[in-house]
């Protein structure tokens, strides 16, 4: 495992800043509208607060003694929970900022114009790879000889009839709680996107429309990135636990690392994002 942790960490440390410098930041002092400046400021505050709190929650899960490292495996999912809640809190915090009482426009807002396909594709890819990995693990799992915990070891049958086992292995012992956690995360993501799309605004003011469109896209992108960080982090942890020199495991871990780097770059640098028409 030590032979794979170092290159994985290095790859993550190189990719994340590289992706961050490509993103541009919509600075609050470029906004002259006072309510929009406040909105921007509050959203950024909730984002940074969320990053700190989510990181602390994940760290606590990793260091708290748990049954055979379950906390360690669930740390990425808990990070995404913390981040999602912070982003959602930020949206509720700025609910009225883009609205002017009694003034609106007869605009029909297309929900899909705020959801870019790239983040969705990244999340879907990570989910698919993780699902394949965990299903394979379910098919080859066995009891851990030292603790008799089922789904925590992988058993190999040798030609001479003998068997050998190794673990920890991402069998049902770990994958069950992980699957439940990720399912809840996806539900939270859907809820967060719906709330972001429903935030009211004064569509009669073109400045409000431009800034609010950008803010919605950034928030939704960040929410997808938060869940991607959870899924990709889980993928990396599962792969690191199970790498035995096969190409498949290498593909899984690299996929997870690249997705993690993208997710962190989005969470750390809001960026402008692209309007999907």
């Amino acid at each position, binding site marked *: 495992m030590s032979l794979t942790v170092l290159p994985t960490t290095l790859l993550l440390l190189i990719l994340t800043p590289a992706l961050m410098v490509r993103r541009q930041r919509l600075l609050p002092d470029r906004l002259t509208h006072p309510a929009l400046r406040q909105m921007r400021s509050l959203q950024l505050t909730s984002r940074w607060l969320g990053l700190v709190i989510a990181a602390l929650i994940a760290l606590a899960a990793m260091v708290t003694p748990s049954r055979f490292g379950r906390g360690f495996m669930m740390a990425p999912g808990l990070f995404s929970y913390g981040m999602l809640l912070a982003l959602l809190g930020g949206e509720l915090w700025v609910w009225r900022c883009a*609205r002017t*009482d*009694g*003034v*609106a*426009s*007869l*605009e*029909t*807002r297309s929900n899909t114009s705020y959801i870019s396909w790239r983040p969705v594709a990244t999340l879907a890819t990570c989910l698919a790879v993780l699902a394949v990995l965990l299903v394979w693990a379910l098919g080859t799992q066995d009891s851990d000889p030292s603790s008799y915990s089922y789904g925590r070891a992988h058993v190999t049958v040798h030609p001479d009839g003998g068997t050998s086992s190794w673990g920890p292995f991402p069998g049902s012992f770990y994958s069950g709680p992980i699957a439940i956690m990720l399912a809840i995360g996806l539900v939270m993501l859907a809820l967060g996107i719906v709330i972001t799309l*429903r935030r*009211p*605004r*004064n*569509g*009669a003011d*073109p400045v409000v*429309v431009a800034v609010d469109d950008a803010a919605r896209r950034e928030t939704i992108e960040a929410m997808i990135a938060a869940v991607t960080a959870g899924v990709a982090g889980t993928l990396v942890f599962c792969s690191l636990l199970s790498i035995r020199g096969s190409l498949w495991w290498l593909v899984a871990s690299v996929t997870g690392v690249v997705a993690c780097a993208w997710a962190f770059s989005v969470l750390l640098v809001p960026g402008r994002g692209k309007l999907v028409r």
Partner: protein
Amino acid sequence: MALAIHIRPDDPTPPFEQLRSQIEAAIATGALAAGTRIPPVRQLARDLGIAPGTVARAYKELESAGLVATARGAGTTVTGRPERVTNPALAELTAEYVAAARRLRASDLAISDAIARALTL
């Protein structure tokens, strides 16, 4: 830019009537063409900061007048201009106003928007 709606709280006209009359005026002037979708009740209510029932009542009255049509899954769309018996003097006055506004290079949307604002005063 989509048509602006203004609901004045100090106007004695009920909010649903302010909304209904502005949408009707926009349809009458052609600013809202037939086939144009207008926002869902809840979205417009949230944006304006008024009760959804108020917007729903305005939409219902517009639908009763044959100006809009609501279909499940397709939202509310403009069906056409209201047929009215026009006052000849009013028609002449309107034509003069529109001509003057066009000399100022105002777009049709800006002209109808100005009429809608004046109706709320």
